[in-house]
């Protein structure tokens, strides 16, 4: 069939020439290439000690944000959990008491908020779904651990540090 793209290349199998049959020239060439790599700088990043530079839109560990007065933004609406394709997020909502006004921004808040980091695929849909700008995937890489239960991160690990502690 006529080639439309004109990119088709017909290869024919030729018997090896004498030089090719000796293997040695090709071997010497290959050995030269590998030895030149011995003197090249290695591409490895020694991870726990050195961290690679991430792009600005890198999605790492989640953090639950506070507003400018240090109140938690999350209202436990559940949209993040609903949008999560991996079903990694669960929460229990609670009603804010009058004396807790300085802690939570709205009348409803998340009493528990858990993300299973083994399920999470770091797609960032929770961050897009959130109407309160309460969750962002702006943290570092989630560290390794030994037990499955330790990968379920609660509010103790997720909520941003209070304002005065930040300073």
């Amino acid at each position, binding site marked *: 069939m006529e080639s439309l793209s004109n990119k088709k290349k017909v290869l024919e199998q030729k018997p090896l020439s004498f030089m090719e049959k000796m293997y040695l020239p090709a071997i010497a060439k290959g*050995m030269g290439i*590998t*030895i030149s*790599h*011995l003197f*090249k700088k*290695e591409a*490895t990043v020694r991870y726990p000690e050195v961290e690679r530079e991430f792009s600005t839109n890198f999605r790492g560990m989640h953090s639950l944000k506070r507003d400018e007065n240090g109140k938690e933004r999350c209202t436990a609406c559940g949209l993040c959990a609903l949008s999560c394709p991996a079903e990694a997020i669960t929460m229990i909502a609670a009603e804010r008491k009058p004396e807790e006004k300085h802690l939570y921004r709205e009348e409803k808040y998340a009493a528990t908020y858990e993300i299973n980091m083994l399920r999470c695929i770091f797609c960032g849909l929770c961050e897009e779904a959130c109407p309160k700008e309460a969750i962002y995937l702006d943290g570092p890489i989630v560290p390794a651990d030994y037990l499955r239960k330790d990968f379920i991160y609660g509010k103790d690990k997720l909520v941003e540090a209070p304002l005065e502690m930040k300073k």
Partner: protein
Amino acid sequence: MDTGFIIEKFILVAVIFGISLVIAMYSTYAERKVAAYLQDRLGPDRAGPFGILQPLADGIKMFMKEEIIPTTSNRWLFIVGPGLALLCACIGTAVIPWGSPMEIGGKIVPLQVADINVGVLYIFGVVSLGVYGVMIGGWASNNKYSLLSAIRAASQNISYEIAMGLSIIALLLMTNTLSLKEIVDQQHGWRWNVLYQPLGFLIFMVCSFAETNRAPFDLPECETELIGGYHTEYSSMKLGFYLFAEYINMFVSSAVMATLYFGGYNYPGMDYMATLLGPTWAPLFGTAVLFAKIFFFIFFFMWVRWTIPRFRYDQLMNLGWKGLIPLAIANIIITGVVIAILENF
């Protein structure tokens, strides 16, 4: 035979045995490091500074692993296999001259366990025994892949042993002796055999790659076709023995190559060094030179492994029977003719 002689030999054997085991151990580390650096990586660097304790960690891991002996295997031979492989690898070091005789406290101590007058033949015998470890292990596993691999190893070793033997014959025409000690002493200073026998050395080197089952001739453990090859069914330290035997084989064949073709413990300017260092330290310096040569060859083995892809089985056989054997025979004829001309005219 006096007790001094026995003690002297015992110490020498213990030292050589220890050194070859340590070198085999650190060859595993060196292999991973060389592989890493040739591929722009770092290699193991977590256990100790620069990962220097990695072989120990690997050894401990090997000992701790669960040991599985398949119920359908031939139990006794299954256990004998790895031991035989390691034993055959280790006894090759006995005839290699590690240095010229050393003077310790007025006593001349030869740095060679046994200067037998058929040293070259002994090495050949031991090397061809080495394939029994692989064959017995592969057969006793009662596994198709292991058996195939054992057959491959056997046929590969037999085919390449012929070319290896023929390449040595050309060398023996020159040296007129089978004793490794005398072969080394003939290469005093710069008169290394490789300068007179470059083709013979090339054939010998290619064959020793095949004999040690190293890449590009590592068909017996070709993982794409045979899973793990002859050690598919092996686990724990039995597997470790097989892997270890490969590295000791590599060490021994590097030593043989250095001894036969690269002058062993000879180096240019050795007479001057002998007067400078005295009869105790000069032989040790020679030994260090020999080890430098051996390390270079071990590095070369690794360098080749991480460069050249594995041969196909028919290519391997073509190269062995149609390439190396005729070349080796031609080498014998050329050597013989040249020697005849030099002696008669």
